[in-house]
């Protein structure tokens, strides 16, 4: 890999915990790497498999899914659905030949501004080491959309 590789990270975050947590990172002026693009959804329970795959197909090198801690979901149980689905998604990704290291599933609460910065930095560094996700993008080039 060339040294100038800057990964594209897409983050699906819930409105109530992680989005607010990322707001707190801003309010606390904690610096982190600018590779991440945040997409806001009401709850991690809203996220389905196709959204993650589409993100890879459109050029993401890494994906973050983050919501409320277990027991703290604004919608009571959406994050539990997300957690159970993630177990299935992981198997499905494995089966499809998608590198599961490219997706990070995490909890960041509205009070964890520092945790969000740490998470983004960790994932960005990790994906930078893994290099561009060329395999999946090749599908898009081949016209499979």
């Amino acid at each position, binding site marked *: 890999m060339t040294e100038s590789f800057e990964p594209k990270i897409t983050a699906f975050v819930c409105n109530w915990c992680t989005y607010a947590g990322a*707001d*707190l990172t801003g309010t606390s002026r904690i610096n982190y790497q600018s590779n991440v*693009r945040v997409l806001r*959804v009401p709850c991690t329970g809203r996220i389905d498999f196709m959204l993650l795959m589409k993100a890879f197909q459109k050029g993401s090198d890494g994906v973050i899914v983050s919501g409320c801690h277990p027991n703290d979901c604004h919608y009571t149980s959406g994050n539990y659905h997300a957690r159970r689905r993630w177990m299935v998604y992981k198997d499905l990704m494995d089966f499809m030949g998608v590198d599961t290291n490219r997706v990070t599933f995490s909890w960041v609460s509205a009070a964890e501004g520092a945790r969000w910065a740490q998470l983004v930095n960790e994932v960005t560094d990790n994906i930078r080491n893994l290099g561009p996700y060329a395999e999946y993008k090749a599908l898009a080039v081949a016209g499979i959309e």
Partner: protein
Amino acid sequence: MSRIGVFTCHCGENIGATVDCAKVAEMCKHVPGVAHSVDYKYMCSDPGQRMMQEAIKEHNLDGVVVAACSPRMHEPTFRRAVSNAGVNPYMCEMANLREHCSWVHEKNDATTQKAADLIRVLVEKIKHNTPLYPIKVPVTKTAMVVGGGVAGIQVALDIANGGHKVILVEKSPSIGGHMSQLSETFPTLDCSQCILTPRMVEAAQHPNITLMTYSEVEKVDGFIGNFKVTVRKKARKLDEKLCTGCGLCIQKCPNKKISDEFNEGLGTRTAIYVPFPQAVPNRPVIDTLNCTFYKTGKCKVCEKVCPTNAIRFEQEDELVTIDIGAIVLATGFKLMKTEAFPEYGYGKHKDIIDGMQFERLASASGPTAGVMKRPSDGKEPETVVFIACSGSRDRSKGVPYCSKVCCMYTAKHAMLYKHKVHSGKAYVFYMDIRAAGKDYDEFVRRAIEEDDVKYIRGRVSKIYEEDGKLIVKGADTLMGGEPVEIKADMVVLATAVQSNDRSEELAQTLHVSYDTYGFFAEAHPKLRPVETNTGGIFLAGACQAPRDIPESVAQASAAASKVLGLFSQDQLTREPIVAVVNRQAGPTYSYCVGCFLCQTACPYQAIEQEQILARNGEVIKTIARINPGLCQGCGTCVATCRTKAIDLQGFSNEQLYAEIMTL
């Protein structure tokens, strides 16, 4: 073709110093669908909003992206602004350039690029936005107050005086809470029961208040304005309507040696009992765990002596479901027990008591009728040591926070003791004296200066018994940590205030957030201190954090005013961010195949079954239907749906894929 306006805000220096806003505005001009793109110093200011509204009219815009701060901050502001200019408020989105970009990244090209990307994402989203209209729901103008302590009573009275019905639910047999147990209150030393019991009676007699004592909230369904609360009325084992409260059953009950909860274990009560003489309602309950009849099948003395035949041994718990518009939680606190302190003898010394037990000893209605007698042998204690911060501000006890009331009540206890035992000696071990409040510091000074209470700054490391005395070993940190040893007759621990038993369970029943320590979480620590994150549920008193009486009462009135505000409307307006099931013409009628996986996933029971009928009444298809009143818009059903028949307004598949396509 969409005509979208992009308005990039500098937020003074907040965004402008890191992101090249002019360049961002220029870049956005070239995004397909963008008809107008400008930057401005303060978009949220009056001139900023006016500029936006003029631009909407001038350029005939049908969608707006405001690139400024977090939508959690100003989305309502800008949605209102575009709405005033004639554009549907849900055609306005905010790109978070401040919290998610300028405040967290260095000033460079990548940051400016990210800012433009964040805007592009939302431009694509807006192209797929549809105008949405707020949902109107009716309001049931009856409030439920959970907890009948001083906070709950105040909330109930304020709402009732405002002209609305209130149901006051209390788990114990009487309202009154902890305040009814106190002897005297700081900083005025007026008798607690004298000021509380008239309030209790007022609540009981108020035409708008229904008391449900000895009852607990079992289940809560519904949403703001339209809750359905199921309350378990525990069996008192007597007919409340027939009972006159004469007390004959209590006098005759043969089982008299049961530890009395109201007196914190310092006195005894009978198996059929009222917690205290001024209890409201003055109706006894049978403690089935200790009643001879329930243990042996024989006795029934109370039934024989009851002049109105009110005893009902066969009575069962009753579940009542009530329509409620707003709920106020005022479930209070509990004190850490002396058992939690190995260094102070695990609570096995009878003369090491907690603050509430001291209140009962000092109370005229207590087990000693207010005469200072130590619990072990009933002698008058000559030396009493009070230990503040017992458990509070102590990480090893799991309580890093300050319990707030102990400094004041410890000073009060020492004073009360000195007023009752003039020759006695009172020592207080403390960490800091936190006596902020009206007349509070003066009160502590009075204890020290006028009543000669000895304050020692330091911790007590160990207490043990020797020759009938409690040896208290500590240190005086103001004397350079010099060891102190006091031979005491009684020790009072100002133990930590903790969240009430089962508060987490209750929070989960009500879908309310709570903190690490089990206290209910307010919606905003500064600006929304009495609301919870769940609409229509409010907080009062020590269930939110340790509080003293004036604060609890103030918060209770604040919560009541929130409820009255809610009840002043006939209809509530709700965000139209709800899920909808696809409908189309026959022969398919809907993508929904009727598997109802969504029904099991929905946390709000918002999904119903709907039958599509032919003209002859024959059922063609059964599909899901979402009740927009119950749906909270989490979208879990959307991700669960196998046929993509459900979509979430405001966060539709189309919108999310459009966002991803810009990456």
